[in-house]
Structures are given as C-alpha cells and as structure tokens.
C-alpha cells in the first residue's frame, strides 16, 4: 500500500493503481472522456490531467495512466488544470456540438462560450469503441486510420467488416453518437440549459449537501 495526498486528503492506495482509480474510489471527481474502467487506459482526451507534486517539482500528469506513488501530492482541480480542461472541452464542443456528454460536461465545468468556428462532426476520436470492440467483444472490427486531421475510426478498407457481429457495443460506449443534446437550439451552439436552472436548494438551504450529480449551478453562483 502507498499513501498519497489528493486535494489535501491523505489516502491509501494499492500499489500499481492509477491516480484516477484512487481518486474515484475516494469520491474525488476527475472528468474523463476516453477512460472506461473495463478498458485499457488510453490517455488521449487529456481531461483527466492533474497536477502532481512529487517533492522535487510540480508537473501535469495523465491521471488515468500515472501510477499512485508514495508521498505524492495530487491536485485534481488546480487553477492551471481547470483552465486547461475548459479549453480542451471548448475544442471538443467546437468539433461535436451535439453531444450531450460534452454539453453536460460543459455545464458542469461552467464553460460559457465557444470561441472557435463550429464544426459538425460526430466523433471525438476518444477510441472507446476501438478498445471496446477489441478488448471486450474480442472482435477488432474497427480501428483508427489516417494521421492528424485525417484520423478516423473505420473498418479496414472502409468496407463492411466480415468479423463485425453488429453487437452495437461501439455505439453503446460512444459518448457522442448515442446521446444527442436536445438543448441545443441550432446545431451550432453551446447548450448550457442546465446552467439556467437555479435549484431552490441553493437559495434556501445554503448548507445542503447535494446527493445528485451536481448540476453545476451552485458552482456558478459562487463564482458570480
């Protein structure tokens, strides 16, 4: 067992586990898009980046891959981290504005504007489907092709795959295609519907502990 500090709280973790696993176990919220606990960590969405102080220097690490080490201090929501995460999300929403997963995250993080030209794509290249197909379904019918801007997930040679069983696992796990955000009025904007709702709890019961997945409204109120 190793002992480390997450957001000021001393926690114990099994050797070999990642910061993200430990943080989630103890209830610290670190946003992720390309992570799934049953799949190999991929480290591509960069939302799970946290600040780690290892006694010598402070650096940003990918929490879904970084092993929990003895004595390190982890900050899951430092200013640098939160600012970067918001910008990453802004980039992703500019790419796929209609994803409910992304729009919900945006509301939670308090993202209020997208400053880039909006596109209308339906894949954020998180690779969940690729890993799902290979690792869980034992199929390997899809993978990435192309580099950089041309990167996409397809079947080999873009022809219907002979080994695909149409199981739908790729669609089930996809954070973009399955859940479309219905709050977006025109297909090219930030929804933020959740931000508009101000729950009574915040006004009336200031000390209430919210047991639901936070809608983010309380955070917004504090900031303003």
């Amino acid at each position, binding site marked *: 067992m190793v002992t480390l500090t997450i957001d000021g709280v001393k926690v114990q973790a099994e050797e070999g586990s990642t910061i993200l696993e430990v943080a989630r176990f103890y209830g610290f919220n670190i946003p992720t898009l390309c992570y799934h606990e049953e799949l190999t960590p991929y480290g591509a*969405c*960069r939302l799970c980046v946290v600040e780690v102080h290892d006694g010598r220097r402070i650096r940003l690490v*990918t929490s879904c891959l970084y092993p929990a080490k003895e004595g390190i201090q982890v900050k899951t929501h430092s200013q640098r981290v939160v600012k970067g995460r918001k910008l*990453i999300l802004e980039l992703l929403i500019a790419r796929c504005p209609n994803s409910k997963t992304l729009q919900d995250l945006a509301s939670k993080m308090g993202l209020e504007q997208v400053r880039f*030209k909006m596109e209308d794509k339906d894949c954020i*290249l998180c690779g969940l489907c690729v890993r799902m197909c290979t690792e869980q379904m034992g199929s390997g019918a899809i993978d990435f092709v192309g*580099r*950089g801007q041309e*990167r996409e997930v397809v079947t080999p040679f873009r022809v219907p795959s002979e080994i695909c069983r149409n199981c739908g696992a790729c669609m089930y796990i996809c954070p973009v295609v399955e859940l479309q955000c219905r709050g977006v009025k025109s297909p090219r904007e930030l929804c933020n519907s959740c931000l508009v709702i101000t729950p009574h709890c915040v006004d009336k019961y200031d000390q209430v502990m919210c047991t639901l997945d936070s809608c983010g409204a309380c955070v917004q109120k504090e900031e303003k």
Partner: protein
Amino acid sequence: MKIRTNQVLVALRNSLLENKDPNKPCVRVCVSTGCRARGSLDVLEAFREEVMKQGSGIDVDIKQTGCHGFCERGPVVVIGPKEIFYQGVKPYDVPEVVSKTLHKGEVVDRLLYLDPATNQKVLCETEVPFYRMQTRRILANNGRIDPTNILDYITVGGYQALAKAITTMSCEKIIHTVEKSGLRGLGGGGFPTGRKWRSCREAEGDIRFVIGNGDEGDPGAFSDRSLMEANPHSILEGLIIGAYAIGAKQGYLYVRSEYPLALKHLQIAIDQAKEYGFLGDAIFGAEFDLDIDIIRGGGAFVCGESSALVASIEGKVGEPRTKYIHTVERGLWNKPTNLNNVKTWACIPLIVNNGADWYAKMGTEKCKGTAIFSLVGKVNNTGLIEVPMGTSLKQIIYDIGGGILEGKKFKAVQTGGPSGGCIPEELLDLPVDFDRLTEAGSMMGSGGMIVMDEATCMVDVARYFLDFLQYESCGKCVPCREGVKRMLEIITDITAGRAEKEKLELLQELAEMVKDFSLCGLGRTSPNTVLSTLKYFQDEYRAHVKDKKCTAGVCKDLIEYFILENKCTGCGACLKLCPQQAIRGRPKNPHTIDPSKCFRCGVCRDACPFEAIMVK
C-alpha cells in the same frame, strides 16, 4: 577476415598506414546529398576519366567522401597531401585541375575560396573562416574517409575504441566514463547519456535492446543525415560499445526511408563490420554477440519521438504513448531499451578513446562537448557546422555563417526545427546549449538553425511551422490534434487580416494549454514557435491585427504592390510577365498596377531591372 584481438586490429592499421604513401596525391570529392545535387558525381567521374587520360607518370587516389560541411560552395573537392580546397568545381574544371594541380603541383586560383573579409584567396580548408571557427570532433572524419570502405575508417583509428572498451574496460567502467564525460543526448532532449545507460543496464529483464535514432524530420535539418552518409562506422562503433556496456544482444538503427544514401551507406557499413567480426558472435573474443538491423521509417515526423519509434519498430502504428514507465525499463517489446540519437552514439568512440576528462573539458558547465547544427536560411555560408557548446549565436551566424545574405538586416534565428522557437536579435549573445535555448523559449532539437532576415514575416513563419505540425500530428490526443488546428486557423486569420484583438489572447491561451496538456514531446513543443514569436515579435502581430499591415511585406492579403513613377522607365518587362494582366502603361511611360486585379505573386518585382516596384 575476422578481427578477434586488439593486436590484429593495430597490425592491420599499421600495415594500412605503411602502405599509404603520405606524398601521394589524393582527390577527395564530396558525394553527399548537397554536393550530389550540384553534380559532384559528374565531377568524380570526370576526375576518374581525366586521370586515366592524362595519367602517365602519376599515381592518384580518387576518393568519394561524405559531407565536408560547406554545402553552400559545393561541389567541394579537396586535394591532398597539401589539402588544397577547391569549391564550386564543375566537370569542365577537372582537366585543368588534373594537369595543373596533380601533375605540376600548381594551384588553380579561380577555384579557391575568396575570403570576403580580407578579399584574399584561401588555400586550405582549415583557413576558410567557415571551418576555422569550428571544432569538428564528431564530424572530423566526414570529409576524409570513404564511407563505403571500412579500411578507411580503420586507417583513421576506427574501431580502436571498441577494442579498448571490450578488451580493457568493464561494462561498469564504460558507463562510468560516459557519465563522467557529461555527454547529453544530442537528439535534442539533452538527457544525460550515462544515466540513461545505467538505468537501462540496471533495469530488470534478460533481454535488452539498443536503438540508434536517425529519424531526423525537421525541415531544414540534415545533421543526422550527413553523419550517417559520411561516417556510418562511427555510429556503429558507438552503438556496439553501448550494447556491450548495457548488455544488449540486438541493436536497431531507425532511419527514415527518405534518406536512401544514408540507408545504403549504413547497410554497407553493417555488412563490412560483420565481415571483420565487429558484429556477430564473440566480438573481440569476449562473450558478447551483437547484431544490428536497420529499420526504415515511413517518414512520419512523430516517429522520431521515442515511444512512437518503438511502436513503429514493433510493427504498430507510430503513435506515442504516455511514458510514466520509461523506455529504459519497458521499451521495445516491453524489454529495457536504450535509445540514443545517432550523433550521441558517434560521440562514444571519441570519449572511450580520449577519456571522459578530454570530452568534459569543452563546453559549458552543464553541457559538455560540441553541438552540431545545420545552418540554413538567409546566411551567406549555409552548411553543416560543429561548435563547442556555449558558442554564441552571434559567432555562429556572423563568424561561421558569414552574416546575412545580400547585407540585409538580421531578424530572428529559429533553432530546433518546428518544435523550436524564434530567437530575436537582442538575444544573439546567447550561448548555445540545451538549457539556455530552453530558457529562451526554443530548443536544441535535431540541430536545425534557420536564419531569417528582415524580409521575413514572423507571423507567417509561425503559420508555416503550425501547418507542418498540423500535418505531422498523429492525432491521438486532443490538445495537439484540435489545438494545433485551431492555432493554425487563428494565425491564418491573422495573416489574412481577418482577426481581432481577442484572437491574439485566445492564441496565447491555446498555445499555453497545448504546451501543458499534450501527450508527447511533439505536442508539448508544437506551440514554441507561436509562443516565442508572440513574446519577441508582439509588434508584428499587433500590426497584422490592428493596422492590418504586414511590415515585412509577406502576407499577401495585407500588402499592395505599386510602381514608383520616378523610377519606372516604361520598359514593359513587368507588363509582359504579369499573369493577371494587372499592369498597364504605354511604352516609355510609367506603368501602374491595378490592385483589384493583382494577386501579389511578386513576379513583376523580380523582373523589374530598375527596382521601381515596391510593396506597401
């Protein structure tokens, strides 16, 4: 013939030296890529034919060598034993050289280098200012030996370090020597080589690998290429010593397919080393077997990054992974792997031969030895240079590079390729080493050094490199894939005069995020050009955004060509060439350009003999 002991190697070298007549003329023609492009193969052929033709009574060695470094003046020919340095030699010059220099020992004056400072002709390579200011160690034998002949390498003392290392030094002692020398990875990262070797040797595992990284992909860099082409055995020797010290039985050289000559020379070198027993079983009689294979890279820039390179060798897609477990512990096929740049490997024989103290004597406090740069851009002397660490940029650009082309004003120098930053004039006294360049917002990188003059638009430079990086990004992580794309989008808007002030702030914010959040080295260094130009050339960005002006006159959407009435003679040279028929005017009367038709190609300005066409 397999060489199994040091004595045999020394005897072979002595016999080679004895059989070599020191007074015998030797023509050394550079056939490296730069000179080859200027026709050095024809020059070489012409020498062979001419010597046959005029050959009675003289005995001449004609040798093809690798890059001499002074690519600007190619094809370069050096004639020993007097070491006469001829530059810009054409096949039709050859008969005169043969009849005068080889037969009579006279010098062909017009082929000598003219020193612009003293206006005097220079006889030897060592007297040329370009070479005089350099300290050539790794490149020392580049222009001396035939890269395809192992005996040439043995004659200059080759494989002696290997013999010394295996027969007289323990693995521990070799690693200690490398550590003590202070050698740092010359591929750009600058990680202490000795420490890396030690970690790899001490890592758990029975099988280990050594890899030489020759996947140089920066635009404007050619140092790895020149070394692989000119002296492949020095890289092999270093790699073999390293493999012995670390305990590896298999080595790989990862070289991009775009370097056919380097691949050819390396393959020849490997075959020859096997023939002489420097590779294979029981090297120098020790219990040490090693094989080295060449892996050809497909040309992806990101494959120069260690984890992507390893994936590429494994046959997977060349994509980086997050490296919280280092390659030295779990690299190629999850085995301990030591990866160094080919230049770093070529340093090893020098260190073993001359000792750690000799190496550590040169350089700065934290960076020892020499650095190799491909000096290109708007300098008078482009070429491959080697200088001690800590040499100032000013010395490199003005003393070695001979200053800026056409006497123009210096504006910036970009080091480290697309991942590096642009360093302005006020930092020209900066001593060049890993740490100081990083502090200035640039990096050493693969050793590219691009000099830019006043006619360069820094915003456009940043746009060019972002465009390169967008194309070369593997696309795995969001900051690099989406971030670089958006940075390019913003900067393209700026160069087109479409951007407002907020975009500049967004650009800065985005650049900082990409630097912090990207997965691999490519992504993390990709905004360096943007950040450094934003820092040092803010005025230029402001002029583009606020005044919609490109002060350097480069960005097409922000400039206008016009004709100076008092200078134009109405010769019509521009009018005939204009592809848009935007120029009007009667013969012998001043012409005018119709800005609505002009698409700013600049053909007219180049064609005007009176410098009457200006840009505003």
